[in-house]
């Protein structure tokens, strides 16, 4: 979780231990559980299914994201996280293949130990792949925290997030490593922002490699 940032951009990006499981729930069309260190999220996808006439879009599928916290009712913070996840998913799903249908994504927090938004994004991507929904590219989430002394920490834990002066989450796509979505909190300079984007792009390679390995393991039984 430490990064030594040097001018030559040779840094080692270390992320916490990953874990992923697909198709663990029997009712949804696609489901996945994603674990980053101690942060654990469960995602379920339903779709393409029937949509209410008031919510239907004539040429695209209607994507709805619901985030459930471990304790308590959803608040404004969950609504803004839902908005971030929905915008990322709309960018990568081929929703024009299912007009007048609904796609529902439900994210349940099992344990929150930092980097929650990026864990939501990773779990959502695995769940979409499990449901067989057509996607133009994969996406992943990476969180960076800038500590008081200026050091950049990737995949921070909850204590590291509390002690940081800025927290940045980026959603990166798999084809061109471009930033699909960014959600930031705190104060930082332009140079620090660009540094964090570069670090996130580097970290995303490891996450995509992990996706590939887990999908290969899943299909190994039928091969």
């Amino acid at each position: 979780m430490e990064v030594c940032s040097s001018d030559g951009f040779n840094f080692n990006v270390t992320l916490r231990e990953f874990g992923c499981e697909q198709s663990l729930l029997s009712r949804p069309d696609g489901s996945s559980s994603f674990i980053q260190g101690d942060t654990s999220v469960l995602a379920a996808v339903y779709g393409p299914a029937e949509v209410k006439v008031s919510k239907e879009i004539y040429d695209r599928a209607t994507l709805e994201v619901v985030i459930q916290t471990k304790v308590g009712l959803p608040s404004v913070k969950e609504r803004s996280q839902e908005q971030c996840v929905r915008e990322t998913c709309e960018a990568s799903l081929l929703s024009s293949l299912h007009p007048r249908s609904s796609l529902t994504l439900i994210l349940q927090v099992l344990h929150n130990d930092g980097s929650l938004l990026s864990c939501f994004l990773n779990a959502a991507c695995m769940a979409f792949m499990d449901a067989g929904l057509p996607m133009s590219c994969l996406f992943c989430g990476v969180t960076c925290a800038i500590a008081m002394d200026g050091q950049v920490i990737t995949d921070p834990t909850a204590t590291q997030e509390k002690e940081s002066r800025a927290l940045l989450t980026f959603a990166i796509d798999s084809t061109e490593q471009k930033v699909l979505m960014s959600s930031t909190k705190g104060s930082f300079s332009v140079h620090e922002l660009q540094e964090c984007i570069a670090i996130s792009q580097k970290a995303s390679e490891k996450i995509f490699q992990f996706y590939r390995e887990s999908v290969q393991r899943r299909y190994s039984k039928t091969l």
Partner: protein
Amino acid sequence: MESCLKIKVGAVLLPGDVFTFIKTDTISLTDTLKDEKIICGPGLRRNGDDVVVCKSGVLRHKNPNLYWVDSQQRRYVPVKGESVIGIVTTKSGDVFKVDVGGSEQASLSYLAFEGATKRNRPNVQVGDLVYAQFLIANKDMEPELVCIDSSGRANGLGVFGAGGLLFKVSLGLVRRLLTPQNEILKDLEKLYPCELVLGMNGRLWVRAATVQKTLIVANLLESSENMTAQQRRTLFKRVADGNL
């Protein structure tokens, strides 16, 4: 490009993987220029000069030039020409509304049965099971089913289901059961005589001599999805010996 696709047959692909048509700058004067034609099946899309993967799964190939991605899915999307099991939900005027498990209900005209005329209506009630084929199934229109083929004969389609059990499995399992000479059905034939209807929307209907045998066959089919061939054979053998 065909060569880079051929190398990857049998490999697991993820959405976003691209196969590009490599343009050669030099044209050989001695070899003839061959036109490459590739047919993209489910899971592959054309993006200009590239073929892009849009679903995760295993790349399969059928001679001469058909490629597709074999993915495990539970949700059915209507495709023209496929035979599915539907449940009649409403009767409105001249059309039945049938639930096929997709994003909207399909319509089935009462004239689309063998020997049906305006005076001679087919005997279909709400809640009946129908085995029908898609006449129209695209993303922009409401899907339409028919219970006759192009010559007007039923050919196995129509209402069925007195007794028996309807249950849901994944689409991949149904496709495996529909391949000719597949192992699962061969093992099942040796076990109990039973009647089996396979709908490509993931619905199976089974009827055997007794209720208990019907339930056993249903459970065997549901569980054979996640088992290797060896585990399946041992399970069938245990049932045949009467130890279950």
